[in-house]
């Protein structure tokens, strides 16, 4: 019986971790679940059909969320790849301070920032537009793309680029054919971070985007506030799948030597 206490603790922990997730799955297929039934009294996919109807609001929100996350990722990569290369390879005097600067959006309570962005955007007519939401998401996601891409560039051996230069490649050719491909897996991982961060973002979209730009988290919130447990659960599950998949594969993306250089 020596394994009993350990087994009980593990079981309790599993209940704590997976209980809420099981609850979501149950609600998503519960056509009726009223007290005192401990489990749904009727199961079915009626609400899934309703959510996934092509003209339904959820599909619209899903595509909009993916579109915003894609634009955010592209914007972040476009400004981060050059910046990260400079941070990794050039000898910058303010390097540590600049790296820290990109961390700030994650290190401060964001809400006061968002309400003031909403106020500024209002005068530029950016409130309730996709561009406005993308810009705010990008400022927030930059820490991932910059920090991880910097680590990825730093993990590329300088000698390889030098060798290419020695046999006559120009600076940009050497970067494009040697350094960039070698750093690509790390950059791809950072892109996934930015994409997920934007897909899941709630607070900024709530202040800057709503009600015109209705991303999936905003739809989840209004379904939950309206007491529609089934639609809220299905929306939550749609957001949950990419997060869990990423959790399962992230280690394959980020090699240890890149991870060890993050933030250094």
């Amino acid at each position, binding site marked *: 019986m020596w*394994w009993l206490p*350990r087994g009980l603790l*593990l079981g309790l*922990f*599993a*209940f704590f*971790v*997976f*209980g*809420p*997730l099981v*609850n*979501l799955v149950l*609600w998503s297929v519960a056509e009726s679940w009223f007290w005192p039934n*401990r*489990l749904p009294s009727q199961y079915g996919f009626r609400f899934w059909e309703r959510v996934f109807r092509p003209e339904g609001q959820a599909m619209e929100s899903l595509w909009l969320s993916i579109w915003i996350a894609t634009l955010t990722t592209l*914007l972040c990569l*476009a*400004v*981060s790849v*050059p*910046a990260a*290369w*400079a*941070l990794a390879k*050039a000898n910058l005097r303010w390097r540590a301070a*600049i790296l820290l600067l990109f961390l*700030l*959006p*994650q290190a*401060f*309570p964001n*809400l*006061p*920032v968002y*309400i*003031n*962005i909403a*106020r*500024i955007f209002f005068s530029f007519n950016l409130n309730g537009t996709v561009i406005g939401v993308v*810009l*705010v998401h*990008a*400022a927030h996601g*930059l820490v991932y793309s910059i920090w991880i891409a910097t680590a990825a560039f730093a993990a590329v051996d300088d000698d390889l680029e030098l060798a290419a230069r020695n046999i006559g490649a120009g600076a940009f050719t050497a970067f494009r054919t040697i350094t960039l491909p070698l750093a690509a897996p790390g950059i791809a991982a950072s892109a996934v971070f930015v994409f997920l961060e934007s897909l*899941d*973002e709630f*607070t900024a979209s*709530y*202040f800057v985007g709503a009600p015109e730009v209705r991303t999936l988290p905003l739809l*989840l*919130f209004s379904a*939950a*506030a309206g007491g529609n447990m089934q639609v809220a*659960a299905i929306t*939550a599950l749609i*957001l949950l799948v990419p*997060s*869990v998949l990423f*959790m399962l594969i992230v280690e394959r993306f980020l090699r240890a030597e890149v991870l060890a250089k993050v933030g250094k």
Partner: protein
Amino acid sequence: MLPYLLLAPALFVVGAFFLVPLAFSVIGAFEGPQGPTFVNLANAASLYRMDLVFTLLIVVASTALTGLGAVAIGGYLTLGRSRTALRLLGAMYRWPLFIPFIVAAQAMRGFIGQNGLMNNTLVWIGLMPQEWAQSFLDWRGIVITFVWKQLPFATLLVAGAMAALDRSGIEAAQNLGAGRLRILIGIVLPQVARNIMVALVLSFVTMMSVLSVPMMISGQSPTMLTVAMAWRINSFGDYGTANALGLVSCILTGLVAWIWLRQAAAERAR
């Protein structure tokens, strides 16, 4: 010159869409219809003093529980002997890592309510009578959701640092007959204290700025500062008080970060 040109676009994005609005928020806290004023701060203090205390209690309790959980799981992953248990625990603890707060809140809402899945399961197994079933959808629910969501992140940092430790110290203590709890407290913890602090400071700051969890788990007053700020904006268009509350929460997180930085600097100097 070239490196700074390459950095410029990225710096612009952070500057225009984070630093400038942050500055607006600080200035806004002292802005009145007739020039600079402290009225906003006074308003915030008189209307939301309870919410401030409530926020601090929740975030401190969640941070402490997250730290304890991370040390317990990390400690077992480092010192545990049962292969099966290690594999199961390692595969389980990470699941909520990237799950967004709003999804966590929705999942918890149905789980810990009075007739939620948790109470139903406990009654069904026979661990408690139906009359004991109570709703956790108040401050306790917020703490539970925060810990559920932040535990994997903190554990990942702490367990990673523990795994990177030199095993010889642990083995030496084992040979001298020290128990595992003793080794965890006496040998492992002091060496990873800095990593634990990093995990806790980051968790503290993250939890301070979450709006969805308090809004969805518990609607009653007192509530967390984030909800109070959103309320000032959405219901009254009162940017002054909202910015004053924002300033207070920034100062709070700033203080925590400052204490941590000072400690880290003192350690490096040693």
